[in-house]
């Protein structure tokens, strides 16, 4: 299995185990008996596989991006938004740390995403760099935490200030890419309307040289207005098409003790 296929395998079986589904494996074919409270989402029983060869031979669903069940699972997991308590797998003692997980989404006619972690020292509120640490699960009930509700916002603000600052070059890069694409289209539109306007101007010169030309001139004025109107619409469409949004979405948090 490739890296992504492994992750898919872990996610799907991890999810079904979390919801207490019964998982029966038979040579790569998995029968999942769904608990009552999840039947609305998945039905009472699923037959799934991660192996294309098995899928070709048997009535079952292949778990891969785009498959309906996999989509439901990934969506459910994304919606958990967990906050948890963990510990560091190391003997080095540090202060308690609040780790924020951001999923940064760049949206426009192109899209890009990035997972970003920011650690805030809960004592000093300083940003820390614990990139290479390994986290371990911990029994939540044994931990006594003394956190002021207000201070969560302070930690969060420190984290987003940091991430926003670090992401500035990437935001600028993305903006540049989108504006280049927009400029190409804008150049075409500007050129077209410039020509249409100059065609009108030429016509107006000819009309004004003729006697009794007021009707024709009025028509030309209307045509000119219509061009301006069209141009405005084209610009508006372009602005909306190439609008850029960057979302620093908070997706999870872990208090590391």
């Amino acid at each position, binding site marked *: 299995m490739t890296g992504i296929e492994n*992750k898919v395998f872990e996610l799907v079986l*991890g999810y079904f185990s979390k919801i207490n589904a019964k998982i029966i494996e038979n040579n790569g074919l998995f029968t999942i008996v769904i608990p009552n409270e999840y039947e609305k989402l998945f039905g009472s029983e699923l037959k799934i596989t991660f192996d294309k060869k098995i899928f070709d031979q048997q009535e079952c669903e292949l778990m891969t*991006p785009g498959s309906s069940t996999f989509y439901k*699972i990934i969506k459910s997991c994304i919606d958990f*938004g967990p906050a*948890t308590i963990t510990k560091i797998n190391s003997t080095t003692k540090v202060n308690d740390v609040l780790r924020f997980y951001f999923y940064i989404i760049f949206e426009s006619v192109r899209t890009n995403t990035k997972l970003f972690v920011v650690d805030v020292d809960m004592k000093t509120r300083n940003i820390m760099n614990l990139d290479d640490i390994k986290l371990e699960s911990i029994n939540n009930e044994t931990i006594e935490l003394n956190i002021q509700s207000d201070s969560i916002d302070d930690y969060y603000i420190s984290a987003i200030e940091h991430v926003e600052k670090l992401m500035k070059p990437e935001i600028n890069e993305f903006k540049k890419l989108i504006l280049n694409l927009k400029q190409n289209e804008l150049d075409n539109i500007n050129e077209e*309307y410039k*020509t249409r306007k100059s065609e009108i101007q030429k016509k107006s010169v000819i009309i004004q040289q003729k006697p009794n030309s007021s009707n024709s001139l009025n028509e030309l004025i209307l045509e000119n207005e219509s061009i301006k109107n069209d141009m405005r619409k084209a610009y508006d469409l372009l602005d909306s098409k190439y609008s850029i949004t960057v979302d620093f979405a908070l997706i999870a948090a872990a208090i590391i003790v």
Partner: protein
Amino acid sequence: MNKETIEIKFTDRSNVKSKLRKLQFDDYKTFQLTLNAFYIFTQIKKQPLSIISSIKSNKKIELFDHQILAALKVKNDFGGSAFLADEVGLGKTIEAGIILKEFLITGLAKSVLILTPPSLVYQWQDELLTKFSLDFIKQFDDDRFKDAGSHDLLIMSHSSAVFPNHKNLLKNRNWDVVIVDEAHSMKNSETKKHQLLKELPRKFTIFISATPIQNNLGELYNLIELLRPGIFGTLEQFKNKYTEDNQMRKLNTFFRDELQKILSQIIIRTTRQEVKKYIKFTDRIPYTKILTPSDNERKLYDEITEKVRENYTSGYSILHLMIIQRLISSSTDSSKIALYKMKQSKLISEDEYDHLYSLAKSIENDTKALELLKTIKEKTDSKFLIFTEFLSTQKYLLNFLEKNGFSVTIFNGKMNLIERNESVMRFKDNTKILISTSAGGEGQNFQFCNNVVNYDLPWNPMKVEQRVGRVHRIGQKNDVFIYNYVYKDTIDYYILELLYTKIKLFSMTLGDLDLLFEDITDEKSGLSLFKEYISSKNEIEAKNKFSALGENWNYKKEELNNAINKFNQEVFRNFKLSSLEKKIDWN
């Protein structure tokens, strides 16, 4: 103009902060699942076509290379907007479906509007749901529809979209993807449809049409203007550079390569010739049985028709009269329903009702049914899909065919989704015959059957095509036989003559029909033919009128065909716009 602002958001959709404040903690497993899900999501976005495995393993789709290559091209080379102009029958809807699914899965799109001719709205909804698990709301006949601005996945007909209330709601939001099926109907820049599209805020646009232009290159210019505004400059500049005549019918061959270069960044057009090595195209073979009705059948038809004619100008609702005429053209059992309706609306007296009803009762079996029986008996190994417009005829045929020893399933618009699916499965696995009403058959695919029977004839050419289209589509392995049964000198006979003999309807495709009948809506076409018939003093006059109408339609069809052929010859000849032009290793 040229706003360069970036909207920065700090969302917390799942209230992580609130959980922290309240010290509500999740277990480590949930935490890991979430991180894993986002990791996969990030990886998916980096793929050229992330849904490739799921699409290739989707047993509901018969997938071909050119379709995947087209989707890859649109996403990776065309910046998400394109004109899908494959020749008829190559699965352009599937291509659009793949693109849509990819965009939705990877987050490139969240809102999608599909604009299609009314006759295809149901088909789109059904195909996207059954083949791609995408649940679109359609604007009519869908209880979930609120208004045109409220749904992220919406299908509307071209004509409904331009209603002022719909139009304003559609324009007041940003759409990520707008798909326009049969996009050639947007060719005229003066129409409301074209204007709407010009103003519809959107990121990506997908046009679909097998016939991008029919008359001149100006139409192509108008369509491309909606996809890539300004790319050809003004219409005048386009005309001067790329065409040789004022009507823009002749391509300036000097600039053919340049035009091809631009079009190849916008249009994907794969031809049947290019894919014939892996797609087998089958034929449609119509068999029309012009039958002589029994004396009593003739008498019943003539006497009721006479009553309808008498009342045509006396203020009765024309639609009511048309339904009566359609009922008596279907079967003797449906004629009995017609008689009851006539008695209720005082079109006939009690005495006339009794007389005509006993005449109907004296007809033991319909001549058409007996003829149908012969045909079915001749083809012992084949399945038959029989269409009728009326439930009364459906019930009659069910009894008649079962009495004659055949296994029969029915399918109609009164059934719910589960019952419909069960019917389809029964027909597929067990029974020889399915009798379907037209309403029931919309959107269903029966490629495993290759005999279609028009027991009665819809008076709208589009509906005839929709019936045949249920079996004659990609996946059909055999030639399709179309059986039509009509009685001589009846309205069905004249309509059949008009549609079959004159314009050779059964060899036309839905795209062709849309072009030919683009101004004719469902109700209008049936009604106008009925008016022609019923306003005739007698059958001879009716016959003459239909003959003249046939000439007219035939002329229009030929003109259209010539124009399309000429365009394809002149403009697309030697153009390399096929998705197969560029081989991409997507394994």
